[in-house]
């Protein structure tokens, strides 16, 4: 019997698996297609203080090995999220698993430091006032390539990043995960900025900035012109970032990027991840949640690991 529990910066997860923000709606959309009992947490789509309309259409393009998207963080505001979305998640997923829904990592963003802090504070207050609610951790998105104000502008400079993290830290007692971009020369200064700012964990990686051009129309395929590349093809790039970050920090890492099979998730764990998110794969194969989980269990059995947490950083030599 493998102990599947992991602790992601204070967030207790029954398994190391969660979902990548933006690929799993607000958590309840996949009832009937995903086995939620295999998820240690779900990660919700990004929310901010007020609802946000996102980008014009088209918002995505299939490419070899993955997907380029520029959804642009369309999403609900924090009030609607707490009044409607969270209770609905708890009820519908709770019913599906015949028990308690997995804890929710709430992805947050804003157009200013104050907005980030405000949404963090509102979620914190809710969590304190509603013990046992799904709201269990925050994932601070400083790396979305698809919105102009906010998002990645806070994640490009370590000093600005550090200031943002510190402000959000003051606003919440929940485990604070910071989601970083892969397109940096060296992840370490960004890792340190998060660490010094008081983050509890890191999420690596966001999509890779990308673009697809329709050569017949001679126009970008996406209305936003550029987008973010996700999917199977980016996995080796993500493993590298996780590996570098793991050696630079004691903060636990939530790894994501191109996980399609158990092998991919195990690579992330060995590179240094404490938990792993499935993202783009869910669109094609929601059954991957169970397949990856089962494959991780059998890998642990085969290799003599008694708990999944032992996989973290367990490279030889």
């Amino acid at each position: 019997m493998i102990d599947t529990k992991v602790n992601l910066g204070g967030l207790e997860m029954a398994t190391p698996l969660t979902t990548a923000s933006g690929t799993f709606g607000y958590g309840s959309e996949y009832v009937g297609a995903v086995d939620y009992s295999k998820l240690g947490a779900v990660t919700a789509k990004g929310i901010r203080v007020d609802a946000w309309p996102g980008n014009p259409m088209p918002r995505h393009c299939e490419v070899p090995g993955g997907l380029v998207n520029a959804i642009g963080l369309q999403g609900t505001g924090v009030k609607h999220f707490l009044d409607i979305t969270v209770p609905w998640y708890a009820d519908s997923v709770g019913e599906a698993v015949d028990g308690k829904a997995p804890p929710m990592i709430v992805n947050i963003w804003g157009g200013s430091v104050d907005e980030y802090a405000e949404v963090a504070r509102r979620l914190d207050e809710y969590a304190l006032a509603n013990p046992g609610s799904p709201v269990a951790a925050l994932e601070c998105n400083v790396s979305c390539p698809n919105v102009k104000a906010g998002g990645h502008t806070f994640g490009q400079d370590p000093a600005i990043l550090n200031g943002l993290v510190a402000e959000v830290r003051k606003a919440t007692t929940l485990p604070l995960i910071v989601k970083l971009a892969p397109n940096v020369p060296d992840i370490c200064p960004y890792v340190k900025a998060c660490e010094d700012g008081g983050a509890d964990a890191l999420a690596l990686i966001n999509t890779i900035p990308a673009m697809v051009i329709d050569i017949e129309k001679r126009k970008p395929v996406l209305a936003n012109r550029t987008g973010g590349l996700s999917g199977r093809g980016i996995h080796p790039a993500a493993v590298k970032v996780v590996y570098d970050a793991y050696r630079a920090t004691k903060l636990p890492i939530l790894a994501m990027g191109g996980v399609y099979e158990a092998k991919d998730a195990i690579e992330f764990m060995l590179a240094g991840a404490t938990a792993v998110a499935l993202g783009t794969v869910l669109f094609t194969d929601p059954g991957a949640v169970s397949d990856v989980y089962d494959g991780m269990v059998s890998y642990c059995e085969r290799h003599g690991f008694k708990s999944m947490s032992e996989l973290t950083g367990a490279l030889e030599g």
Partner: protein
Amino acid sequence: MLNEKCEILVHDELAAGYRLLVVKAPEMAPRLVPGQFVHVKVPALEKSALRRPFSVFNAEDGKVYILYKTVGRGTAALNAAKVGETLEIIGPLGHGFPVKCDGAALLVGGGYGVAPLYFLAKRLIASGWKGRLAVFVGGRTKTDLLAVEEFRSLGVELYLATNDGSEGVKGLVTDPLDDEIIKIREAGGKFELFACGPDPMLKAVALRATGTKSKGWISMDRHMICGVGACYACIQKTVRGNSRCCVEGPVFAAEDLVWE
């Protein structure tokens, strides 16, 4: 919503470029309503390829019928799936047509857009609804007029239109539609419009609904990623903002749609 493994029972070419796919889906079939769609994993595509959405042509006796046109890489790859193979299909998905109607039911389809309208016509009749049921089928040319025999066998009023006049009236499917709308309005009658097809046709039908203060039910066709409401890629502008075709749609009330 289910993710069902479905055996292929029939996979035939109906006309050049159009195919009928019938799968065994005992769990999903009884839950499907007209206008809903299913999300199909195409076996011949690479592991990272997205699923493809298809609206449902019919669902009965534990079987799901899909009528599709080969338009791109995904449908071309689906062509290779053989009878006896298994398809992984998620469904039922989305909001379909209301299976009821106040006044004459005017169903307007273009190309493979007739698929959900046939399902609707069947279910309207099966529901015991006794009103006037007229179906308007359009296409560029004769071979684009699909399911004509199936509609005939339902005993519905049928109006055909082709751009080149190779079958039915020469012109747009809205030409015979307009004639009937005028007659109904002159007689003081009521009607509802149900449409599925290319965007310009849908817009034309929706404007006829709003313009006459009639109800219109418009099935939008958008590229999708997840099909279940998780990703927010398949957006349709509505009076409520950016709505998801896969959840709030694919069938929208005409008065809710915002055309750009």
